[in-house]
């Protein structure tokens, strides 16, 4: 916590089994503050599981996860407090259908940070303005396009300024013509110094915005490096094989 060079997030030998299925078999990774890390890998390679473990939505089978130097995989830590510091955006948006767009965005501010309603709505409205959806504040999520819903989900996740933002294939469920607007927003967040870990299949985008690429295969990190190296001269045969499919 005191060492400025210490990574924001450190995974140390993280394992995750679902019954007999061994999904993560020892993932070790450092993520420095204000960097963007893209996790790539075949479908079913464990990208979502990794992000869900970081966010404590799934307990790890073994290994440790440190956020800001604190071991958050320890059962004694307050998981709710940890999740407040980590935002996540899902492939399927998961907006709350019974709440207006603004209520979705301000929920954590109102119920977790306990800001007064007026202040929360002011911040929520500012966030919606930023993504050009201020006019939809009172609308319900089912009135929005997929791209609009996903952008709302992103600002909902960053509303209470998390230290770390996890993006789980956030464009995979979108109509191709709606992908651009969502990726533009992520690019903007990168400029705003947010630390991001994203699972993605958008290779050109990953190459463009990431500081580091992690290739996940068979539950372990097969190869990791800067985008130019991973995409330009992958060292592993498996990485080469995977990237050849794009």
């Amino acid at each position: 916590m005191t060492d400025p060079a210490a990574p924001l997030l450190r995974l140390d030998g993280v394992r995750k089994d679902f019954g007999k299925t061994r999904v993560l078999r020892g993932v070790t990774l450092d993520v420095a503050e204000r960097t963007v890390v893209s996790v790539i890998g075949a479908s079913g390679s464990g990208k979502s599981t990794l992000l869900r473990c970081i966010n404590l939505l799934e307990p790890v089978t073994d290994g440790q996860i440190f956020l800001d130097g604190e071991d958050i995989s320890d059962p004694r830590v307050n998981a709710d407090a940890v999740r407040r510091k980590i935002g996540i955006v899902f492939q399927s948006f998961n907006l709350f259908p019974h709440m207006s767009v603004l209520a979705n965005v301000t929920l954590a501010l109102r119920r977790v940070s306990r800001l007064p309603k007026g202040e929360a709505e002011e911040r929520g409205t500012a966030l919606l303005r930023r993504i050009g959806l201020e006019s939809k504040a009172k609308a319900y999520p089912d009135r929005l396009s997929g791209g609009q819903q996903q952008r709302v989900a992103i600002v909902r996740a960053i509303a209470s300024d998390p230290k770390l933002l996890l993006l789980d294939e956030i464009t995979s469920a979108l109509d191709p013509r709606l992908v651009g607007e969502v990726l533009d927003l992520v690019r903007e967040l990168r400029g705003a110094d947010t630390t991001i870990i994203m699972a993605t299949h958008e290779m050109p985008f990953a190459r463009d915005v990431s500081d580091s690429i992690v290739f996940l295969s068979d539950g372990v990190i097969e190869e990791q490096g800067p985008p130019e190296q991973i995409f330009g001269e992958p060292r592993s045969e498996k990485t080469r094989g995977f990237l050849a499919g794009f």
Partner: protein
Amino acid sequence: MSRDAARLSATETERRAYRKKQSVRSVFVSCASLAAFSFAVYITLSRSEGWTRVRNTFFDPHYFADSLPSVFHGLLTNLRVLFFAVLGVAALGTLIAVTRTTVSPVLFPLRALATVYTDIFRGMPMIIVLYLIGFGIPGLRIFGRIDATLLGTIAVILVYSAYVAEVIRAGIEAVHPSQRAAARSLGLTHSQTVRIIVLPQAVRKVVPALMNDFVAMQKDVGLVSVLGAIDAVRSAQIAVAKSYNFTPYVAAGLMFILMSLPFIHLTDWYAARLKRREQAGGAV
């Protein structure tokens, strides 16, 4: 409207005329069949041997008017029972439903208790529950004298909570787990997630079934009369005992129907709205 009509093609004008002709015909057919049915009922009744006697014992205007004030006064008791029972059922039913949908192993004993509860109270006839509560609790001699209306209300709450809990449980299970994940990832606690995210969506999904249970409850509150509470049914019974004429029962029955009508129509209206919304969603 007329300007739009002016722009209609000949084909559409012809189609509209056809549809109109069809619907006029349908209205005529249904009116005719209703008239025929009423006539048949009238003939059957008036020609049956005992009709005069039945009419005099069940539909006597004099006894009807006579019993009306006391039956209506009794209905106020039913309304009071209904009011408190709805509150009790909402609270207890939700609590049981939430308990049954927990997954934590440490809560297993509570889950088992909730399951046993719903099994018992859905299986037992309402009247037996009423007897057990109405005569069993006073028999314990812990609380002193308890008002029959209160005991009846408790019995109604116990039985209907079991039904409502099962309906709400179905609603909770229909809320996708990703909604919980999204809520928890924002830092909401487990109980906040249940209250703010899961229950509101669950209840919306089962509103028609809940309304149905409410309508059933509306008439079952008449059963508190078996414990001696002076409600509409009991008042009618007293009037019948005095006159040996059954018209007061018909009066009480009519009042229960009148009491339920607004709500039944609200239910229909809501179901229609839901259907419209779903169809609108499907068209997008």
